């Protein structure tokens, strides 16, 4: 079911997450949630509010500050048949749990000859913009897409929050689901009830003819603003939201590239080694003869995320920097 098929029901990105968890918990008794402060308190962003009261300490589990054990708890429980959802409060904390995520969860099935089935979902919050500084603002998706065995999604709106979360939780592989913490209050249409957005299917958010902007997470909204700015300049851009970062729907992007011949990729992480590099490399591999300009990347400068709003605002790409990137591939810069 798609947005248009149902009457508009506008809720927040964060509430879509919470509602989806509740519906999933009601739907499947094998699902439990574990993480820091997710229980009694409902999570530091209240994303888990009310779940502990409704489902109890058995299914909504407060854990110690122990990210390796949190992921490991999910791995062990999944290996014997449950369908765990484990939470890393901030995406930056994947670093303290990277072994359990990338050496354990992701590789177990392969190392054990296919016997292990790990229906494990890792939820977390990424992105900058809240003055949370270098260790609470990162976007680390580029690390995750380099890990065979994982699936990785990044919803850019409330509708996708529900559809992607349902697909992640129902998938029989380890998945990483990232909420953008600055988008938690943003609103959008979300139907009641469970629905899936297939993993690995990009979404053409806006059709256009002059250039294609591939945007991730919060950058999708910025790209839409950029589209308005550019429209006034007579420039029509197509916007693609991959939604799933691994596996990546390169076909949809390449199709668009063959149509517009000009590509700008936008993400919040630093450019060097970012996911934009992989997308660019694949596009030029598959649409080389169609490109009328180098594929451009709009991303963060090569520094940790700065604290001061004066710096952070300039650090995170926005509509204007995206528009500038598009002007670049159109050779229209001032």
């Amino acid at each position, binding site marked *: 079911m798609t947005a248009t098929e149902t009457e508009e029901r506008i809720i927040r990105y964060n509430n879509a997450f919470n509602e989806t968890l509740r519906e999933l918990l009601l739907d499947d008794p094998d699902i439990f949630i574990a993480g820091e402060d997710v229980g009694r308190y409902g999570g530091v962003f209240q994303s888990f509010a009310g779940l502990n009261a409704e489902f109890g300490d058995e299914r909504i589990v407060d854990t110690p500050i122990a990210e390796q054990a949190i992921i490991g708890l999910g791995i062990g429980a999944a290996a014997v048949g449950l369908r765990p959802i484990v939470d890393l409060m901030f995406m930056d904390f994947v670093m303290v749990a990277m072994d359990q995520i990338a050496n354990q969860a992701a590789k177990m099935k392969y190392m054990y000859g296919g016997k292990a089935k790990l229906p494990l979902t890792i939820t977390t919050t990424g992105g900058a913009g809240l*003055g949370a500084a270098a260790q609470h603002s990162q976007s680390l998706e580029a690390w995750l897409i380099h890990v065979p065995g994982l699936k990785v999604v990044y919803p850019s709106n409330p509708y996708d929050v529900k559809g992607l979360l349902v697909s992640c939780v129902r998938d029989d592989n380890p998945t990483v689901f990232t909420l953008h913490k600055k988008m938690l209050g943003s609103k959008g249409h979300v139907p009641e009830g469970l629905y899936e957005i297939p993993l690995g299917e990009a979404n053409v958010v806006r059709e256009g003819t002059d250039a294609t902007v591939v945007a991730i997470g919060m950058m999708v909204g910025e790209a839409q603003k950029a589209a308005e700015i550019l429209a006034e300049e007579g420039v029509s851009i197509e916007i693609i939201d991959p939604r799933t970062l691994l596996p990546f729907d390169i076909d949809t992007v390449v199709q668009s590239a063959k149509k517009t011949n000009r590509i700008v990729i936008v993400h919040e992480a630093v450019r060097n080694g970012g996911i934009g590099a992989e997308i660019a490399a694949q596009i030029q591999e598959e649409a080389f003869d169609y490109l009328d300009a180098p594929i451009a990347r709009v991303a963060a400068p090569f520094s940790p995320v700065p604290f*001061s709003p004066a710096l952070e605002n300039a650090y995170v790409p926005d509509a204007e920097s995206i528009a500038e990137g598009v002007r670049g591939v159109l050779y229209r810069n001032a």
Partner: protein
Amino acid sequence: MATKQQSKISKGVLLDLHRRMVRIRLLEEAAGRLASEAKIPGFIHLYVGEEAVAVGGCVALNEDDQITSTHRGHGHLVAKGGQFKPMMAEFMGRSTGYCKGKGGSMHISDLDLGMLGANGIVGAGVPHAVGAAFANKYRKNNLVTMAFFGDGSTNIGAFHEAANMACALHLPVIFMCENNEYAEYTARERVMAITDVADRAVAYGMPGVIVDGMDVVAVYEAAKAAVERARNGDGPSMIECKTYRFYNHAGVSAFGTPYRTDEEVKEWMERDPIKLFEAQLELAKVLSAEEAQAVHDEIQAEVDEAIEYAEASPMPDPATDMLTDVYTEAS
């Protein structure tokens, strides 16, 4: 008891303990106010209620000893000699801050003062204390290092690895636990099957003691003993300070929360370490109520000055400041 202890401690030290606690309290109250007015961006974790721990610990150190800190680092820096102006400026993200506005509250630090940095990652600072202690032993410079950390952080791997390594290498380090009974909004008993963090010392082979973290003299004396031990080459030790944060994990509200009762908060506020100590000092004729008030007033004036300074300070400039300090250039 208080007087008995004080008899062993010079008046100068007692007044120092008092002054540093008041410095933390007044700075934090101001920071909290500014945060709720959105003049301080981001997350802010206040130290109010726990002053006796940082102060008792740091006054037991020499100026050139080092400390490591946590996400709740304001108190540690002030106790180690941190100045208000660059702190306030940092909280507000100004280029005149200790970190040029790049770190903010959660990364407040001054390496020149031996404060090796507040840290946004729970437990991550503890290994750094072990490294500094290693360097001190390596250089035979007779310095010691004190790691501050919370009860909740003792559940994470980095703490465990660091504590074991310090004991295995017999390093001059003091593990200073601020057990305020909560990790964010989760009570200790929900995430630990033990009551006293000090019970963890035996797992590493170091002594562990428990002190009243609201009694600055008790903390100071325990710290003194541990520091002496470390300086004498007798290795690490752990001190668990039973304390409490008066405000919530972040921000300045204290009451009406689901995770702890107002009664509990009020009970602990009754044991305000500054009020307790001021009563002791008056009783011992070391500092009268009037003199104490004068200290508060003087420090408050310094805080107000710091706020003016910070607000008048420029923001960093993306064009020139964004990409500096990422790397140390070859000299």
